[in-house]
């Protein structure tokens, strides 16, 4: 893997263009409905400055938030989904993939990269919800597995940013086995005593919660994220009762002992950088 070697020599290239937002690009905060100018969003790390709502963003934004000068080497960027089951529901999986490539400009629901956080090495694998609901198929599992191998080989801490509706049904049992694959790799990372930080963002549910997202040395979350195993609708149908307010939010999951802390996106780089410094010391 020639490409692999290049990134280990420490040649970091910013693969993202620093796009200046065209004037007049506004978004409405989904929570308080106030208008947010694109430049304000960038400035506030995609958090609404009026109500602190954390906008749903993807790998591009998270890499920008965490990596020094937005410089990083993307890892395993050449992986795309196969269609092992030749799956067709109301649409063929192949068509869904092609549509998603066009719509998102992404190759799958995850990107991985090696960069620096306040001068310290860090590998981040970050899910993209826009790509088929951030669903976990073979590419997601494989990129996480390879990222972990990379972290073990180079002794670099691993940050996993989860944002997913769960399994990718169009890969059926192949998708299920990504839970086994990623968990097995995390067991090896743990044996190598390399720190694993799991950041759960809105939403993190299903098979992702039941594998890598819950296996961090520290599990942390952004405020107000939906975090759970079963979806709220399914639970409601099962217990035939309304769900309590705040059920399956980050705050609820913290209160029940499954998170170490909740952190505002505007503080997160600083806090994780400190954590990594403590661990590396």
């Amino acid at each position: 893997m020639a490409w692999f070697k290049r990134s280990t020599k420490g040649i970091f290239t910013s693969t993202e263009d620093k796009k200046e937002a065209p004037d007049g690009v506004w978004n409405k905060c989904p929570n308080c409905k106030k208008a947010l100018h694109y430049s304000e969003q960038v400035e506030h790390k995609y958090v609404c400055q009026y109500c602190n709502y954390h906008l749903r963003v993807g790998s591009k934004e998270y890499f920008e938030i965490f990596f020094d000068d937005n410089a990083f080497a993307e890892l395993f960027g050449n992986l795309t989904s196969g269609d092992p089951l030749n799956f067709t529901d109301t649409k063929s999986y192949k068509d869904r993939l092609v549509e998603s490539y066009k719509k998102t400009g992404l190759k799958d629901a995850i990107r991985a990269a090696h960069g620096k956080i306040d001068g310290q090495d860090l590998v981040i694998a970050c899910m993209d919800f826009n790509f088929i609901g951030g669903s976990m198929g073979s590419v997601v599992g494989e990129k996480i597995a390879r990222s972990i191998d990379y972290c073990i080989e180079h002794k670099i801490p691993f940050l996993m940013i989860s944002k997913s509706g769960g399994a990718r049904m169009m890969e059926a049992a192949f998708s299920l086995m990504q839970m086994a694959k990623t968990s097995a790799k995390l067991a090896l990372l743990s044996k190598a005593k390399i720190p694993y930080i799991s950041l759960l963002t809105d939403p993190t549910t299903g098979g992702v919660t039941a594998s890598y997202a819950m296996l961090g040395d520290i599990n942390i979350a952004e405020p107000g994220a939906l975090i759970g195993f079963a979806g709220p609708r399914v639970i409601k149908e099962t217990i035939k009762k309304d769900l309590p307010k705040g059920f399956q939010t980050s705050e609820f999951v913290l209160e029940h002992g499954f998170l170490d802390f909740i952190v505002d996106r505007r503080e997160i780089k600083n806090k994780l950088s400190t954590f990594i410094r403590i661990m590396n010391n």
Partner: protein
Amino acid sequence: MNTSFDFEKPIADLQQQVEKVKQVAEKTKVDMSATLKELQDKIQKTKLDIYNNLTGWQKVQISRHPERPYTLQYIEMICDDFIEMHGDRTVKDDKAIVGGFGTIAGQSVMIIGHQKGVNTKMRQYRNFGMANPEGYRKALRLMKLAEKFNKPVITFIDTPGAFPGLEAEERGQGEAIARNLLEMSVLNVPIICIIVGEGASGGALGIGIGDKVYMLEHTWYSVISPESCSSILWRSWDFKEQAAECLKLTADNMYHNKLIDGIIKEPLGGAHQDPKAMAETIKSQLLTDLSELKAKKIEKLIDERIEKFCSMGVVVED
């Protein structure tokens, strides 16, 4: 043979004919043995024809037959001794997962499995085989105990899914399953897993990481049930047959896709037609594997176990 499904109707019809012929023979004292023999042959041929060509959905139906043996029944038929153990030492004893130490042909093992109920009352007691987090944590406690005393672990998988309840979420259903996946992948004893009924998603996988993973011939294993898949992808409950085909959830499909290590043949018509024969087949498979796995160095076994699961998945690399 008792038949219960639509697709078994040709067999039921022929069996009815046999009964009629027998009655006529009785009444008229005419020798009808040639006719009977012909009918019996036809029944046998029809059975083979039906059970060797089941669709995905038909297998799902068989896997859910209420008379199929469940974990405790298998344990009773397979083990010389068995001591059931209870509780996760934290919250409670989950009745949907059972486990304990036992012996099979003189060899000590830890057996853990989902448990469904055998009648209406027991089905509720067992929560229909849907475990809460404490079930997975009980399973892990028992596996750790097996590891401590160097006994192989055998799991029987049969669940419509991990329980999607309010308290399950409060007590970390996701974390409990995730922990098991991690711990099982590096457990220092051999693990053999058998899907004996339904293998639904994370709830099944939560006790499903093994050196050998088998499916009984008429079981299913996938990331979602065909009904839920239908409701999500087709936005209707009416496409379960189609969903079952798409999911490629049968033992044949799973073996073909290298997601399991083997298929264990069921008695003709399914495990419920002859539980004893089914248990015998399982027992002999277990004995073969136990001697193979116990002979291997544990470090090598774990490396191979991890490698096997890490090789699952299909990606395109350009």
